[in-house]
């Protein structure tokens, strides 16, 4: 899906835990996530802490969407 969205002309960032799959599939802007069942959260933390995680990942995603890339790029989240 990520590739078809890109092909349609819309910049897209893929937030996922298993980044090698994303690389194989062909996503260009990739942001690593927390875990498969909760990519943008962590049930072991308080809701407020979880939200902070979510914000950081999404900040990175916005940065990825604003950054020129010339190939597949993984944008690491700055914790």
């Amino acid at each position, binding site marked *: 899906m990520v590739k078809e969205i890109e092909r349609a002309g819309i910049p897209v960032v893929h937030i996922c835990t298993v980044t090698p799959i994303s690389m194989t599939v062909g996503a*260009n802007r990739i942001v690593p996530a927390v875990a498969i069942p909760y*990519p943008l959260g962590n049930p072991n933390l308080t809701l407020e802490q979880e939200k902070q995680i979510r914000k950081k990942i999404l900040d990175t995603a916005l940065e990825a969407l604003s950054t020129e890339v010339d190939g597949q790029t993984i944008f690491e989240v700055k914790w």
Partner: protein
Amino acid sequence: MAKVRVVHYINQFYAGIGGEEAAGHVAELREGALGPGAAFTVAFGEEAEITHTIICGDSYFNENVDVAKEAVLNFISQTKPDLFIAGPAFNAGRYGVACGTICEAVAEKFGIPVITGMYAENPGADMFKEKIYIVSTKNSAAGMRDAVPKMVKLALKMVKEDRIGASIEEGYIPNSRRVNFFDQERGSKRAVNMLLAKMAEKPFTTEFPMPDFDRVAPNIPIKDISSATIALVTSGGIVPKGNPDRIESSSASKYGEYDITNVMDLTEATYETAHGGYDPVYANQDSDRVLPVDVLREFEKDKKIGKLHHKFYTTTGNGTSVKKSQEFALEFSHKLINDGVQAVILTST
């Protein structure tokens, strides 16, 4: 036993009528073998005989599919073959599509075995490989010598109703059918053997080839994200509580499009996941963990982004075919563009 009666379909080029200039040639029936039919005749030996050859121009067939198909089916009614072969078409697109179309139609109407041959990237191969047997050939007529014996062998097996082996044994293009069988060695041993071969840089054959993934160049970045409309898409299966469209928990046949106008937060009472490929507990407690609507609403308020698009698109990514996923995304991407969406955040579990 009497010889198997075979009718062979070929195009204007292989009939020696002409190239592109003769591609409008109307469907025609001739007695006996012609063109590549000579090679088939040799390979069939005493077992089968090409009684008739049907010739049709590639453009004529593709531009007049219904009429051409009807004409060919009439020829089959007249000639009553036991076996129908078409091509091989190698990498000729229109020829391949014609061979596939007519094989499928003949099999459906007369219930006789049909076979054709094509190069794997012939568009006719993707269109018909799950419907009929298509022997995998080289991409040009230079591959005739390889193709004919494979087609003949498989065709005669079909006529005799012998067991058809796997694609790798018989040489047909994989047709997505899976057949259970007992191997001599158990899976764990085969897997370790493959791993050892891989580590020793020796050849090995995977038992589950991954589909081919092509590449798309990245689009230019968003200049001003703070004024951009951003949409959320997920393969994590987030749906309104109760899964109103009944998106399948695996091998999804559809995607969902849901309005989130005025939705500030996904809660346990309002959203859940339909995905059957990961532990749903955490997503069901708080679907923002997969589809981060709550934080993007804050970003909207803080003017970090222009707007969160009022619809999100979702499906379950487990076991869903590449083909289906492509179809889904192709369709909703056009909707996104028409709705003025400038960027997408896609989340996967």
